[in-house]
């Protein structure tokens, strides 16, 4: 865990009214949009728990859409995100789901479709104080916060893949802070998530993809 900084107390700098329902929502969507190649054509949000009940009064909808449009939680453009989305030709929908309650109270599923026809669904949780975590990509459990630079590798669950990943990172002098591996089923698609200190150097995805079992690599810089 990182330490509690003075800027965790006097911060985040954010568009109101709620650090969990507005700033956190914007941050989740902002992280999600980094995971799929631009431009996006359509985005569908499913809101759970407290998000589902109070999303309009807290501007959660504008914040989510703003994050998808690339705005950070302190960007005043969030107020106009409906208009900006329309100008950019981005279709969107919001669906409250109040029947599924076995989730963190501030959870959102974001289904994104880009111009290439690629589809990805990201689930995020807003933890309070503007802190968030991404907990699933396409239904596979993952866990990262966006506070650290992250490498997300989608690969087949085969021996040697993780060794390849850590070798590439150590060759590039990347210090690993946290590392997690999850998979759909044995031998099936797996996700390796590596969070590191500092920012990641260029070219990591290309080097990782030299291993034939690695299908895709996403980079999230803080």
């Amino acid at each position: 865990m990182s330490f509690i900084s003075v800027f965790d107390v006097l911060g985040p700098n954010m568009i109101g009214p709620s650090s969990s329902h507005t700033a956190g929502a914007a941050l989740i969507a902002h992280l999600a949009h980094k995971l799929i190649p631009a431009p996006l054509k359509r985005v569908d949000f499913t809101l759970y728990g407290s998000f589902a009940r109070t999303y309009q009064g807290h501007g959660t909808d504008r914040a989510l859409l703003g994050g998808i449009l690339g705005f950070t939680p302190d960007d005043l453009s969030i107020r106009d995100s409906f208009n900006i989305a329309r100008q950019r030709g981005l279709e969107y929908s919001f669906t409250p789901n109040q029947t599924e309650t076995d989730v963190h109270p501030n959870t959102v599923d974001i289904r994104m479709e880009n111009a290439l026809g690629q589809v990805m669904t990201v689930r995020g949780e807003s933890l309070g104080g503007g802190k968030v975590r991404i907990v699933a990509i396409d239904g596979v459990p993952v866990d990262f916060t966006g506070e650290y630079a992250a490498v997300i590798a989608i690969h087949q669950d085969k021996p040697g893949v993780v060794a390849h990943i850590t070798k590439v990172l150590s060759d590039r002098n990347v210090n690993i802070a946290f590392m997690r591996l999850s998979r759909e089923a044995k031998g099936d698609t797996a996700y390796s998530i590596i969070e590191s200190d500092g920012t990641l150097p260029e070219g990591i995805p290309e080097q990782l993809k030299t291993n034939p079992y690695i299908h895709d690599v996403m980079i999230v810089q803080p």
Partner: protein
Amino acid sequence: MDFKNAAELLSLCRRESGPISRIMLLRECSLGEIEAQAVMQRMSKALSIMRSSATIPLTQTVRSMGGLIGGQAQLLSLHARSGKSICGAVLQKAVGYAMAVLEVNASMGLIVAAPTAGASGVVPGLLLALQEEYQIPDERLLDGLLNAGAIGYLAMRNATVAGAVGGCQAEVGVASAMAASAAVELMGGSPEQCLDAASTVMMNMLGLVCDPVGGLVEYPCQNRNAAGVANALVAAELSLSGIRQLIPFDEMLAVMYKVGRSLPCELKETALGGCAAAPSACAHCMR
């Protein structure tokens, strides 16, 4: 350099012969691996956002998302200019600024959570008012923010600042403790006096529930930010006059946390009890 509680903070202040703000800056530099200058730059940015959010609604009306607040800061400012304020200059200004920040927040404007969005008016409200009345330069005000940050950090580490966990005492209560401590340092008080002021606030705001009408960060949140400023000012005044407190801040944080956990969930941000359940509030939400 790090400290886990107020007692350790005080012993560091003694060892370094420095104020709380100085210790908090050293902690940030060492744990965050960041230069002091970079910390101050980032804090200046926060201060400039605080200043705009405290002053924008004084000249232009902002509409809140839920329609429950808007225009209160302007009314206060007009009242003050009419010469009929009964609060005195510091309190009258601080209350206006605090309420202004909540208006900006509720209208999806840019604010600095301090320590939360719902309590974001108290710290800037009191510090900006003190700055004006006592011609405090910006660099000193940044020290005030560092001091406030130390108090808020202790609350986050050892108790909670979430209304959903501890009620409003954890949000506006902690914000007011932060403001009180910062005010004492800015007005020349010792680290012990700062922590006594923070302790006093926690005592006087103990048990305050979180009961937002319609679940929105508007009402009574805005009123509570104004009351928080007054509580902070009173606590700072007691402390600066030499009144000591029996119960130290560490214990008051533990007390607040325990009271917060024993509050029923209807009174912790669920909008099911307190003001949120008053007939007029329910009638408004049905509209």
